[in-house]
């Protein structure tokens, strides 16, 4: 019993220490990759299983973007992620503004710098390439 109590105390102490840091290292690392001049705005933690059918990107979130602002959308994957995180941004008319995945060449971009000239509510669509299983985070920052 004593052995368990000691283990518990160690775990509790570790828990307190972890709480003092950012709650998810993947998120804090991804924020760092956005660069020194960037200013964090939001993050979207994406964890998805393998898609049963091919189709629309599965993780959807809304965000307002404002004219005369340059945003950086960074995508980061956890080490054990099978798929690579991609993002497609659509406007409120469901028109695609950009995608971080070029279907023609198969190339993915780890970040997109987007100069917004039309204020509005946008739809962020995240998924892993080919609907693979994966774990990652999308971070939105402002850049100069």
């Amino acid at each position, binding site marked *: 019993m004593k052995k368990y109590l000691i283990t518990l105390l160690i775990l509790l102490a570790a828990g307190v220490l972890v709480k003092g840091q950012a709650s998810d290292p993947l*998120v804090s690392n991804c924020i760092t990759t956005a660069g020194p001049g960037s200013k964090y705005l939001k993050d979207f933690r*994406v964890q998805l299983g393998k898609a049963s059918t091919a189709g629309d990107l599965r993780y*959807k979130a809304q965000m307002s973007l404002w004219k005369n602002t340059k945003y950086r959308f960074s995508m980061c994957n956890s080490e054990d992620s099978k798929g690579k995180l991609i993002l497609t941004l659509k406007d409120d008319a469901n028109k695609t503004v950009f995608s971080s995945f070029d279907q023609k060449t198969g190339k993915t971009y*780890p970040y997109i710098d987007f100069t917004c000239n039309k204020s509005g509510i946008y739809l962020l669509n995240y998924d892993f390439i080919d609907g693979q299983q994966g774990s990652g985070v999308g971070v939105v920052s402002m850049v100069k």
Partner: protein
Amino acid sequence: MKGRLFFVLFIAILMSSSCRNSSNKNSEFVFPEADSIPVGEAEKLSTEAIEEISKNITSPVEIANLLQLMAVPYSPDYLASSIDANKQTTAFDKALSLGILGADLGYLNMYEKTGTSIDILSSIRKLAEGIRVGQFFDFETIKRLSLNKSNLDSLLFLSIDSYTQIDKYLRDNDRGQLSSLMIIGVWIEGQYLATQVMKEYPDPMLRDRIGEQKIILNDLIMLASPYCGRDKEFNSLCRNLQEIKDVYRDVRITYTLGEPESVEENGGLVIRQTETSVVEMTNEQLAGIIELTKRIRDKLILNN
């Protein structure tokens, strides 16, 4: 045997409570109509939809960033310094003040005004504890980062993330009215900041940003709508939001079409949007917005 069982249970609880919340979303979004939101519709909003709406509210960090681009100097006069956390008695006042001071914290963080931000942090702590959400605010780390001035990104992340977690917790625990108040407080203070600066430092970009708030006004009203009949305080707040909507009624936002231009740069993709939004707002309309925002915001902070 009992000890082992206790140990296993404890570890399971510890692990489940220490994991960051994450959600897999797989739903379609319906964007609200531009000019009408029946109250009945607002009541039918799902928790997920409300969570999404809360993300659409302009971040005070974005407004402060715009002010910095305009080279507007920092001024403590814009802050809601009159809010005394000890005098907030109702949950309504505490949640609304938490939002207002959250916007001030974003402004202070961006201008790296650490001394004042420590005072505001203390008030935020009291208010958060007052509505039993203090556990989501890592005050010590935020204070340390604030004093160090070394890592603005981490400071912004922790501050914003704390508010996001409070918001989620309140909604998940059937206290959505407090979450709505907090978000409305953030917006009103951000709007106050923008309009007050506009008076002193007129600028076309800031003018547009104020006019463009029309885009999210319906969302804001939708957040409050389910609670308008709840009590006198909520009823008054809903009327204030409706007044703001009315003063924006004739502000027009039009769009010009265009295809985005893209170019590869340093391994990333750079996109320039050629589609634009154009705000049509007269000086009288702007003056009305500035005056009304001040009146409502002052009333809210003086009531406290």
